[in-house]
């Protein structure tokens, strides 16, 4: 297995280097300097600012400097937009906040979606299945933004009007487990509702395929109880697509949810990244992408490993 992991890592190094290079080139299609000068800036101010940002250097040198900082885990470069704050600090503070939103959302969504998908597959073609599929499609059809605005209005604002006490925060964030329900539960619930539609439909399709497999018919013919057929035989064999989907999602947990974070005022990674892109804060965008691309490659390798865990037919070679 270690040989497999090392081989995979080596294969992915050029991919990683290419991602970083591509990002650098794409970012530098824009000139970030003009927007960061004050009123009445002169040409000398412009040149001085370019030099300060290191943009006067040839691209290969800038690339080298960036790679060095990535491979030495040195994220001490200052944000261009927030002088005095390093990229590392921004990542360190924003990522846990995003995780506080996305991890519970993913966990709840996955568990509920698998359960609903199994139910739907079990009652395939009957009214329960149709109702669940209808709800899933309906959930997918409504814009995320609508859920957020309605959720904020009814779930936070109106609920408080009705109950006379605030239940969920309209906007804002405070850290700590005890503050989590007040500030984070509503966005988590919205995220769950939005994601459930997509996940349920996907998992249902996987389950339906499994219910038609010969081993299920055999298990039933042998008189295995329904719960055992579903939770032991069917679920285990449906795990590969489920694991793939979940694993692919994992790196995105770090990115947070841009819309939810923006509307609910949760200063997570989505919020930070969007702000960095809007403000041409290259060090933050580059630092974040470096981390994200690394995590993404790791998760792909981890997915391959998990295939072998869940399916004995798969061999890591």
């Amino acid at each position, binding site marked *: 297995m270690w040989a497999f992991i090392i081989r995979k890592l080596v294969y992915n190094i050029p991919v990683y280097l290419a991602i970083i290079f591509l990002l650098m080139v794409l970012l530098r299609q*824009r*000139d*970030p300097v*003009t*927007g960061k*000068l*004050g*009123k*009445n*800036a*002169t*040409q000398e*101010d*412009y040149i*001085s600012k370019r030099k*300060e940002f290191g943009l006067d250097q040839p691209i290969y040198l800038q690339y080298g400097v960036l790679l060095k900082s990535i491979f030495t885990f040195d994220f001490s470069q*200052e944000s261009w*937009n*927030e*002088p*005095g*704050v390093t990229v590392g600090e*921004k990542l360190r*503070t924003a990522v846990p906040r995003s995780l506080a939103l996305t991890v*519970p959302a993913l966990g*709840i969504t996955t*568990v*509920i979606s698998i359960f609903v998908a199994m139910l739907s597959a079990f009652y395939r073609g009957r009214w329960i299945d149709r109702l669940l599929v209808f709800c899933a499609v309906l959930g997918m059809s409504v814009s995320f933004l609508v859920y957020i*605005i309605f959720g*904020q*209005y009814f779930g936070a*604002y109106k609920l*408080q*009007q009705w*109950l006379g*006490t*605030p*239940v*969920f925060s*309209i*906007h*804002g*964030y405070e850290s700590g*487990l*005890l*503050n*989590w*329900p*007040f500030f984070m*539960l509503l966005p988590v619930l919205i995220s769950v509702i939005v994601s459930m539609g997509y996940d349920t439909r996907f998992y249902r399709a996987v389950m339906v395929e499994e219910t038609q497999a010969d081993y299920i018919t055999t298990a039933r013919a042998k008189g295995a109880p329904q719960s055992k057929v579903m939770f032991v035989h069917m679920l285990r064999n449906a795990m590969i697509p489920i694991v793939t989907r979940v694993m692919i999602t994992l790196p995105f947990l770090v990115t947070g949810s841009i819309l939810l974070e*923006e*509307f609910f*005022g*949760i*200063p997570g990674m989505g*919020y*930070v990244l969007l*702000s960095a892109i*809007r403000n*041409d804060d290259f060090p933050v965008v580059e630092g974040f992408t470096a981390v994200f691309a690394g995590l993404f490659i790791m998760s792909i390798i981890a997915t391959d490993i998990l295939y072998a865990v869940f399916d004995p037919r798969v061999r890591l070679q």
Partner: protein
Amino acid sequence: MKQKHAITSLLQLFSLRFNLTGVAALILTCGLLGPFSYGQSEIVLRLPMPTTGPNSLDPVRGASQYDNVAASYVYETLLEYEYLTRPYKLKPCLLESMPEVSEDGKTFSFKLRDDIYFHDDPCFEDGKGRKVVTRDVFYSLKRMADTDNQPKSWWLMQDTIKGFDQYRKEQNEAERFDYDAPVAGMVEINDHEFQIVLNQPFIRFQYTLAMFQTSVLPREAVEHYQDRISRHPVGTGPFILEHWETGLQMVYRRNPNYRDVRYPADPGMKDDATPPYQGYAQDKALGMYDCAGERLPLADKVVLTMFQKNAPAWLKFLNKELDYTRVASENFSQAFIKRKRTLRPSFEAQGMRVVALPLLDMVYNGFNMEDPDYGGYTDQKKWVRQAISLAMDLDEVNEAFYDGINLIYDGPIPSGLDGHPEGHTAAVNYRGPNLQKARELLKKSGHPNGEGLPPLVYYTSQQAQSREMAYMTARNLKKIGIKMEVNALDFSELSEKMREKGAPFFGLAWGSDYPDAENNLQLFYGPFKSPMSNNFNYDRPQYNELYEEIRVMPASPERTAKYVKMRNMIIEDVPMIGAMARTRYYLIHDRLKNFKPEETFSNWVKYLTIK
């Protein structure tokens, strides 16, 4: 008890026991936790900031209005504006009295107050803030010259103080920037008295001394915090920054060592029974003098919350979690009866009040005067631009995109300033829509129905509804046969386009830095052409001469006459079309007292309280 509820609820959630009891407990938990986040016994102001917040609290690095607001709580300047008086009037802040100005207008003599101390901070010995002295003022000004500080406001000092430009050049070229090196125009008399000598008697200088970029800060703090000074301000202001959650919230605490400054006393009516200033009667009726004589700041704590989106800010205000809000266009019809622009009864019944604040603002379309097709100073070129101006309908733009609340005026001088046209309309103007006259002018220029003119390439920002506004303009220009191509760029790309003189026609806005038309008229001064602030690249010797005269003239009828002359030159040459000043609607809860919204200066939070 609360903790037990929280943990129980969470366990129920994660074990997916979504029964009614669980949900009820969860709701109760959330409800119990929510409102206990803030203390109840102190006066807390909860104010909004419609952005991700300031980028830096270092005065020399700050440039935006949001930097100004956030820095103004902690830092102070030599001068400040009188809070309630209109038109704007400067008064001493860190000074004992207004500076004495020599007869030639070049030498300013200052005397610092003797009771001003910096905030207590670990950067000082024993952590106790020390007294402010002359050296602090000079040090703070010199920081604007040090390029290592990434100053954004050197233009305020450029060519202003005697020897300062030379000092800047020498020190930035030297191995180490020497803050102790002398500047000819900065003369220390003693710890509390000093003089500043100007190259010329620039009128702008006095306003500069009230701008947050010239705030006074201690050298110890800069040396102690270095780059972190932008996150850790140490000033003399009424509040101390306690906590800053980037992009979300800033919390300020009352400065316990703030000097004895009192809320302004009621000036009363003048002897001739006229009000002491514009809007006095209204201020009096609103109880603006109820706190007269009380020690500042009136509040114990200020919670400044940033909102990237209008919707949550609006809901928070309705929920009484904010003391005031700016009314965004999407909420305008919810709050106001649009036709009458009065507050809806349901809002009035809650005790809310509204203030419409016309900004010192200029939203305009501009031409690059160096463009070979649409720029230039010949009559033919001028007639084409006049025709374009006449084809445009700013009233339609105002109605369609701003609920008709903005003020349209001729020329570049906003309302309330010397030189602004009476009734907002200049005697000779090219304000549209007047298609017939536009067509006549086009014909006269040799381009009947726009024949022979290439498409007019227009650049605007992607923000808000700029693109839609541009299409409306394109539609109107089509009526006189001129084709307009619209390019919407993000702000940095648009700025770059301006810097490179690459935009023949563009849409921009300018907010005045100080209440003097000179600030707007400098936008057309030849030597300030792109990449500096004259994006029009307007360069007319007559105008330049007038500008050089007015920038050293004190306010007087003669100066106003020159302002009018310059304004009329701009209207006639049409390097810009417009302008329009935005009006900001503020909705204020009854509990917030003494609030008179203002965006030209920002250090008014010390006057606010909750009752």
